[in-house]
């Protein structure tokens, strides 16, 4: 009888949102195919071009006052000013907007009102000790 092969170490590890798979267990580390080599070469070309641009500006005899990082500028723009133009009303976004926008408000309205009603009921029944108001405890 043939048993199924035991689960790989990567499957036993079960990486998730909080931890990633170690490189030793990842089969992609040991992949030496020509596609991977070409991909790595292209990435290296992009990286060295960017590094050259940066180092030219950094070691310039009359350097610019601030070396702007276009990636940083794009990141800031994307997170602050590109959200509203690309936002779209879908069932999911309207549901999430209602939950996050109105949810806490309605929750606290009902909790505080119920608490104060309970306190009022206790005052009417005479159970609550009403000490005279003092600012100094």
């Amino acid at each position, binding site marked *: 009888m043939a048993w199924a092969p035991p689960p790989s170490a990567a499957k036993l590890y079960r990486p998730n949102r909080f*931890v990633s798979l170690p490189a030793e267990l990842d089969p992609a580390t040991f992949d030496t195919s020509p596609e991977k080599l070409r991909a790595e070469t292209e990435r290296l070309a992009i990286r060295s071009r960017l*590094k050259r641009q940066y180092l030219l500006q950094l070691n310039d005899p009359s350097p610019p006052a601030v070396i702007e990082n276009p990636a940083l500028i794009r990141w800031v723009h994307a997170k602050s000013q590109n*959200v509203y133009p690309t936002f779209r009303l879908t069932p999911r976004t309207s549901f999430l907007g209602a939950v996050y926008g109105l949810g806490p408000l309605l929750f606290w309205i009902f909790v505080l009102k119920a608490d104060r009603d309970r306190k009022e009921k206790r005052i009417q029944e005479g159970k609550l000790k009403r000490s005279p108001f003092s600012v100094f405890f």
Partner: protein
Amino acid sequence: MAAGALRGVLWPRAAAGLRAARAALAAPAGARAASEMSQDMMPGPYPRTPEERAAAAKKYNMRVEDYQPYPDDGLGYGDYPMLPNKSQYERDPWYQWDQPDMRHNWGEPMHWDFDMYIRNRVDTSPTVVPWHTMSKHFLLFLSIMLIMFGLGEIYPSYRPVGPKQYPFNDLYLEKGGDPNKKPPTVIHYEI
């Protein structure tokens, strides 16, 4: 994974959008602080055609095969690339980064949650023990301790005790009794 990353982020996004709208009313549309980058170098809407994808990949300094935008859910990502959710801890500490503390190179596309993944904050490096094992051990320990403490509260168990006995006729003078009157005699023993 994108939904989990978004959960705490929608409300400040709406506030930022409102602020941007108000700022757009104050200044002409398209105006930005003095910077040499033209509008086509900035992030834009979700790319629909393959040419737009190629142009976006070139804009973000990525390979076309590597470039993967966030799914077009209308949540406000636009054409920003979806990079793997790995913290800066996982990057090589011995490589000569342009910014060594951030482990980030000039011009390299930054993760959407870059400020969360810096080395002072969230760390997603692989752990020695798998996450599910760690959480199982921790939750088992916590639940067993809580259950035992709860049972101890519901069914307490101690040696038999009686009420505390005070001398000097139950501390008659100390409790404010009249010194001229004879105190009521309190006897705590039987012979």
